[in-house]
Every structure is written in C-alpha cells, then in structure tokens.
C-alpha cells in the first residue's frame, strides 16, 4: 500500500511569492494534518482537516491556508513568503476512528531566498 505522498520533495521560492504543497493520504484515511518543522525543532501544528472541513488551526498567520478535496487529498498554500517560512512541511494522515498515531509523509523541503 502506498504511504502518505507529498509533492514536490524540494522547492525553492523567492520572498513574496506564493507556494502550494500537495499531499495524498493513505487510502481510507479521511483526516489530514499539516506540520511545519523548522531546522532543529520539532514539528509545529498548522492545520487539521477531516471530511473536507477544517477541524483545527495552529498559531500561524492568515498567509497560511489549506483545503481538503473529495478524494481526501490536501493542499497547503502559503502567500507572501518570508525567509522564516523556510522549513520542512510534513503532511500526516490518520483514520478518524480511535487514534493509532499519524502516518507521516517524507515532507516538502521549502527554501525561501
């Protein structure tokens, strides 16, 4: 079975630009979450979606937005990129029933120059 897949794996953007990161969850997983991992830190929660609805949002500015599609895949959008947005962006999916822990993708490494 395919795991959580994220695209692209690496990305370089210029300050002020916009970026879209994509995530496909494991088949049967209806919940997707996004995390930002700055170098040397633990992941920080950005968003959680379930059944196409936002179920939680972390302490991130409105420049960050996301959505979930009918096939449960998800996009994370970041507008007006800042140098501080450079990080590894992790997507994770899980079954809503119970909690067996998230399954994470390998992330998208975003570098803002």
């Amino acid at each position, binding site marked *: 079975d395919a795991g959580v897949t994220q695209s692209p794996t690496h990305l370089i953007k210029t300050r002020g630009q916009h970026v879209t990161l994509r995530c496909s969850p494991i088949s049967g997983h209806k919940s997707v979450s996004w*995390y930002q991992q700055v170098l040397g830190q*633990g992941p920080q929660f950005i968003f*959680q979606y379930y059944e196409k609805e936002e*179920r*939680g949002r*972390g302490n991130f500015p409105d420049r960050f937005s996301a959505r979930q599609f009918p096939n449960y895949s998800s996009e994370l959008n970041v507008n007006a990129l800042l140098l501080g947005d450079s990080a*590894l962006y992790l997507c*994770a999916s899980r079954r809503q029933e119970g909690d067996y822990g*998230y399954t994470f993708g390998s992330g998208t*490494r975003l570098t803002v120059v």
Partner: protein
Amino acid sequence: AQTVTQSQPEMSVQEAETVTLSCTYDTSESDYYLFWYKQPPSRQMILVIRQEAYKQQNATENRFSVNFQKAAKSFSLKISDSQLGDAAMYFCAYRSWAGTYKYIFGTGTRLKVLA
C-alpha cells in the same frame, strides 16, 4: 497550554546496549495520548510507540518500551539491544484526548548508535 520537553539534545549508545531517552510534559488534562516518533535522515516521521494516559501499564513494542509516570508527567523511551538502524531523531509528542487532533512535539533527541 500543554508543553513537551526533551532535555537531551543528543545521546549515544553502543550497538547492542540499552539507552533511555527522556521526555517530560506539562498539562492540566487527565486524559491524553503520548507518542514517540522516530525521524531518520529520510525525514519521514515513524511512529515507534504510543501510550494512553488512562492505562497504567507501560506500552511495549518489541525492543522499545516506555516508562510512563503520570504523576511526575514523565514519559521516557527505552531502546534495548540497540541497532545501527535505530540512529535517528526521536520526538516525544502529546495529544489531548478530545478536541483537535493536534500533536505537540518536543524538540527532539538525536540518537547515535556506535558500532
């Protein structure tokens, strides 16, 4: 707000030996989950073990076990018979029982396994 603290930035262990990684957390909640995740250089976070706070019995998964001390808010990970493939960053994470399925991660411990 809940916090998770990992006070050991880096640990080393000899192959086949045992190592314990420390994690403390702060919460006013009585029901929650605790996790240990492993992040190798491939960047993918891999679930190692989980513990429900209402269970007194410590979780065990093969060579991995935890020492969960609820009153002390401590959740350490013991790796027995360490293998070279265990080398990675290890993150402790907390999740509330209800509400948003948000994980709060510690800053991680880098584990080196020496041959």
